[in-house]
């Protein structure tokens, strides 16, 4: 009993996310979302491997595969794609593929850290504003909307110009820029959740304001912000690449896709591969995040179901009746057998119907 209970308590934090978890489970019915998830996972693997490689193995992996992405080779300047350099080399003879893999680290770090700053800052501010209401709400939201009204790239460039170009300032700048969007989303969620009876119940139970806000309200509104976060991941990566392209962001010799595009433009005609591959990577990454975000949004919208209802439910139904352990123990076997057949038939019919059409 006591061990059971302690596991229950330990699992509590995990289980609080059940709304989010259920949504993620729902995602498996969406092809787009799975595609997005694959792209994002691939990027994640690339980023993790290159990070491990840099920190622990002193570039051993990348060297053994393509050569050091920071190592210059004056004999191999602008070498076209070949077996040795699958994506060619750049103006210093550095391997483009190696640099792209290393660049994924920077792109993802910017995506995750900047979105993280925006997410937590936005959720806290927006939820606080909505919960307090009145002039607190007005002050916070008007300030954030002012921030929101300035185009992101212009604001980022200004901030980078003031703070000085460095990757940490890049995180910071894009984090700040993201705050208003999250704040607005969570605010509207909180405003509606605040009226729910369980919030009144929590108040009547004597819970403190902060506990009500963070334990009762925010977990219920989190799913909408999560979609916003995934969708904005792509735009943050593009924005960061744009800043690096303009020279404000990541500084050489760190490999970053935006930076690579910047240096590639001078040789666009003689060595297009130096520009094409980083550009392609940015495109794929952003698309991956957007596909995932779209899938998440659909999964969370109660009006749309990602499953195709007819096919899936019948299949599940047939599976369920086939499996005696899952079948209704009260029902007779004969009855079950009958439905199992009819279930399968119905499914077949549905398939046939689909093919005929």
């Amino acid at each position: 009993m006591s061990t059971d209970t302690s596991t229950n308590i330990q699992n509590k934090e995990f289980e609080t996310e059940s709304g989010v978890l259920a949504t993620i489970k729902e995602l498996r019915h969406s092809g787009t979302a799975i595609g997005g998830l694959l792209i994002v996972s691939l990027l994640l693997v690339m980023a993790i491997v290159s990070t491990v490689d840099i920190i622990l193995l002193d570039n051993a992996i990348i060297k053994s595969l393509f050569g050091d992405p920071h190592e210059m080779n004056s004999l191999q300047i602008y070498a076209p794609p070949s077996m040795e350099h699958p994506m060619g080399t750049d103006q210093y003879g550095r391997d483009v593929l190696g640099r792209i893999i290393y660049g994924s680290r920077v792109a993802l770090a910017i995506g995750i850290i900047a979105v993280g700053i925006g997410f937590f800052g936005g959720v806290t501010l927006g939820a606080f504003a909505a919960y307090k209401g009145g002039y607190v709400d007005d002050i916070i939201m008007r300030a954030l909307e002012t921030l929101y009204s300035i185009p992101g790239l212009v604001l980022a460039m200004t901030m980078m110009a003031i703070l000085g170009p460095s990757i940490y300032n890049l995180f910071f700048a894009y984090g700040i820029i993201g705050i208003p969007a999250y704040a607005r989303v969570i605010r509207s969620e909180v405003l509606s959740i605040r009226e729910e009876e369980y919030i009144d119940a929590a108040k009547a139970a004597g819970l403190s304001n902060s506990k009500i806000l963070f334990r009762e309200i925010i977990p219920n509104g989190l799913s909408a912000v999560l979609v916003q976060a995934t969708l904005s991941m792509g735009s943050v990566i593009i924005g960061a690449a744009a800043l690096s392209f303009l020279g404000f962001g990541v500084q050489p010799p760190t490999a970053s896709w935006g930076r690579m595009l910047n240096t590639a433009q001078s040789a666009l005609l003689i060595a297009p591969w130096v520009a094409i591959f980083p550009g392609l990577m940015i495109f794929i990454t952003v698309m991956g995040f957007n596909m995932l975000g779209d899938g998440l949004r659909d999964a969370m919208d109660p009006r749309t179901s990602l499953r195709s209802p007819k096919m899936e439910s019948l299949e599940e139904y047939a599976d369920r009746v086939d499996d005696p352990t899952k079948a209704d123990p009260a029902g007779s076997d004969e009855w079950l057998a009958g439905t199992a057949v009819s279930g399968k038939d119905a499914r077949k019919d549905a398939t046939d119907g689909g093919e005929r059409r």
Partner: protein
Amino acid sequence: MSLLEVSDLRTYFYTDGGIVRAVDGVDFEVKAGESLGLVGESGAGKSVTVKSLLGLIDVPGKVVDGEIYFDGQALHEMSDQELRQNVRGSDISFVFQDPMSALNPVYTVGSQIAEIVEYHTDRTETEAWDRAVTLLDDVGIPDAEQRADQYPHEFSGGMRQRVLIAMALSCDPKLIIADEPTTALDVTIQAQIIELFEEIQEKYGTAIVYVTHDLGVVREVCDRVAVMYLGKIVESAPYDELYQDPHHPYTQMLMRSVVTPDQDVSELEPIQGTMPSAVDPPSGCRFRTRCPRTFDECGRYEPPRIQVGENHDSACLLHDDQFEKEEPTLHLGSEVAETNSTSGTRGAHDE
């Protein structure tokens, strides 16, 4: 000594359409272990009254006047924080009307109860969880240990109401305020929940304020009844006495509008008209606009609550000697006249 003593409670809502006098001078008391039914039609101010006790009125509402003494503490003088730490959820707990929406959908029911226990007592997480399981078992949830680990959507309405009651009991309150706890349930489940309240009262000796518009429910649960009309208590009496001998015209009409098994439906008499707006209540007696026995003085004086029996009072000028001779003038059916004469003499006698 009374557990809860409320005097001259006034809660107003400052809306664009004017000041809504939702609760306008309410006095009542609850003794330890007693159950009081607060009865009235929708909009009479029952819920606002009980929410005012715990300072749960949100803007634009405000408790503008009144004294609330609970167990020797002056609740009306406490800050929000003091109420939170010492009263809400621990000494006085609340059961809400709609069990479907009064539980947070993202937490298991066990952890929701444990949270409150942990917050108000010194218990550790594990102890709080054990307490939650015990409570769920106490309120009649089978397999409490497994069920504690489930989410609200996995419970039926009646079971959720049981969970809410378990939550209300979690810190051994001296008073439970139940705000129409059976209204959202179907009749068979209602009976079970009412039974549960009776059991709780027997077992723990908790005082209960039971807000309802259902006189049948009141009969089951309550020792005493206070009838509210438009922000005021018009009559208060032990249930049996009120049932047999209602004094206030409103209570009499209320009794006649309730279906009882041994009654022909054709005998039912709905109360004519609707309750006037609390923004601009009628002068004098607030019920006079719908009262069949209203007379001129009704608009001039606000009737005080006149003692008409032991523990029985009614706020109607008819009970006052001074006006007793006055002939009731308007819309007077013979049946009403009969009741009138008995209640009138009786009121006069007690005065």
